[in-house]
């Protein structure tokens, strides 16, 4: 029993070490050539444009649901006008980035893990290395960079569409004025909120891309292994995003107090 636990712990430490090394190298690769611009654009298209429909749809509905939930409470106190403030702050600070991170993790971390995993089991990654290409530069760095660049943009769109959904719900359900909702929503935000909301997705993009790449490139056990890696990529990336959210929120609140 003791040996089993020790082995499991050793594997965990080795995994964390390998993951950190891969993630670090992915960033260091940016400092020197060769760079694969076409691959970066392809990945930005896949992670960014490809995730747009689910992010927008989910954002719209979550914004509307937020209004319905908070509105029903505010109605009791006759303060329905505050709905815009609450929904805006919750969306921009928390729900927008985290929801986008988890949605894109579900779509892209799994996609990255399955593509890279399939390449590993069919020896395409070895073939790449045999032809003198560094898989870290060709496969990992473009995906990580695309994740870091695309997640803040997706989050901004998610926030906007969420507020739009909130506006529609507040007009039709709470009978609020649309202009009043938008004015209150925008005025409720200050720079620290925006900073918090835009800082988080950068980290989430990094997490989901690196976890997807790591799980894909360390696949073992053929096609079954690819399936396992895909599932693990989504689970690990989602949990890491939620865990990182706690620390990022604390950091952002601290910075918000100190600087802004």
């Amino acid at each position: 029993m003791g040996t089993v636990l020790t082995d499991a712990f050793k594997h965990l430490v080795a995994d964390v070490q390998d993951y950190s090394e891969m993630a670090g190298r992915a960033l260091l690769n940016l400092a020197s050539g060769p760079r694969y611009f076409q691959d970066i654009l392809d990945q930005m298209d896949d992670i960014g444009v490809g995730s747009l429909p689910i992010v927008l749809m989910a954002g719209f509905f979550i914004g509307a649901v937020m209004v319905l939930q908070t509105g029903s409470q505010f109605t009791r106190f006759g303060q329905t006008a505050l709905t815009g403030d609450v929904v805006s702050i919750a969306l921009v600070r928390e729900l927008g980035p985290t929801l986008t991170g988890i949605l894109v993790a579900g779509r892209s971390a799994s996609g990255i893990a399955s593509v890279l995993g399939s390449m590993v089991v069919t020896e395409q990654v070895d073939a790449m290395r045999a032809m003198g290409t560094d898989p870290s530069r060709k496969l990992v760095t473009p995906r990580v960079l695309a994740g870091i660049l695309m997640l803040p943009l997706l989050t901004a769109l998610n926030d906007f569409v969420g507020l739009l959904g909130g506006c529609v719900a507040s007009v039709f359900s709470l009978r609020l004025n649309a202009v009043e909702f938008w004015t209150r929503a925008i005025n409720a935000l200050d720079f620290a909120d925006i900073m918090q909301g835009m800082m988080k997705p950068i980290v989430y993009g990094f997490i989901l891309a690196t976890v997807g790449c790591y799980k894909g490139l360390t696949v073992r056990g053929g096609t079954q292994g690819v399936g396992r890696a895909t599932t693990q990529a989504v689970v690990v990336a989602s949990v890491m995003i939620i865990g990182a959210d706690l620390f990022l929120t604390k950091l952002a609140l601290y910075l918000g107090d100190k600087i802004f």
Partner: protein
Amino acid sequence: MTTSAQENDTSAIVAFKDVKIGFDEGDVLRGVSFEVAQRETLVLLGETGTGKTLTLKLAAGLLRPSQGTIEVFGEEVSAMGEKELLGYRRKLGFVFQEGALFDSLTVGENVAYPLREDRLSEDEIGKRVEDALRFVELEHTGEMLPSELSGGMRRRVSIARILATRPPMVLYDSPTAGLDPVTAQTIITLILRLRDVFGVTAMIATHRLQDGFGLANFRFDPESRRVLRLKGPGDAAARNDEPATRFVVYRDGRIYFEGAPEELAESKDAYLQRFLASI
């Protein structure tokens, strides 16, 4: 592809010295030493799991030995860093068992891939891709995806991909595994052509004994464009300009036999006879 100076040079360009490698399950190679001379073809035979593919991956620097040294082209591959290895591997060709073509790229893009990595001009790339695909008689497949090709065609494209970079040495990992006899013969003929037209040095891991003897007993004549039977071992004068083929048989992680094809064929060793009869 090769200069006349290289053609005359018969010194070893691959040297394995007491190479060991193992994984969690135990050692796979337990002290392997051999050399491969310029323009020579080394056929690696052995039962499944005896380390034939590992040997090729070690030679290409895709894996590192746990002990021993590997020298290729006079450089110690086993001591190179990853960055040096990337440059070194560009001088090699590696044909993987299933071809290992990039399935998201067309056949033409696959063949062009190593050339784009070398930053050649698009005109030069286009010409080389066309030449390489013509060499493997698949010039009509340039726009097709690998999934649209048969297993044999994928391996021919894989040979075209390494041919495009014109490497002086090629490593073939079970190039005929899982192919029907006619397609397997096509692949062996291609390997013969690569050797006899471009003077390529080769290491071939294979399960099929007939592949090894096919390479040992035949040659491709570029002038008549026909495959001809080599003159026999008794014709000593003829052997000087004929490509040499040597066999290495692995058993339990060690070299059990190393020698010329005729020595293998005439061996009275019980294990070799049983092994040869079984493959």
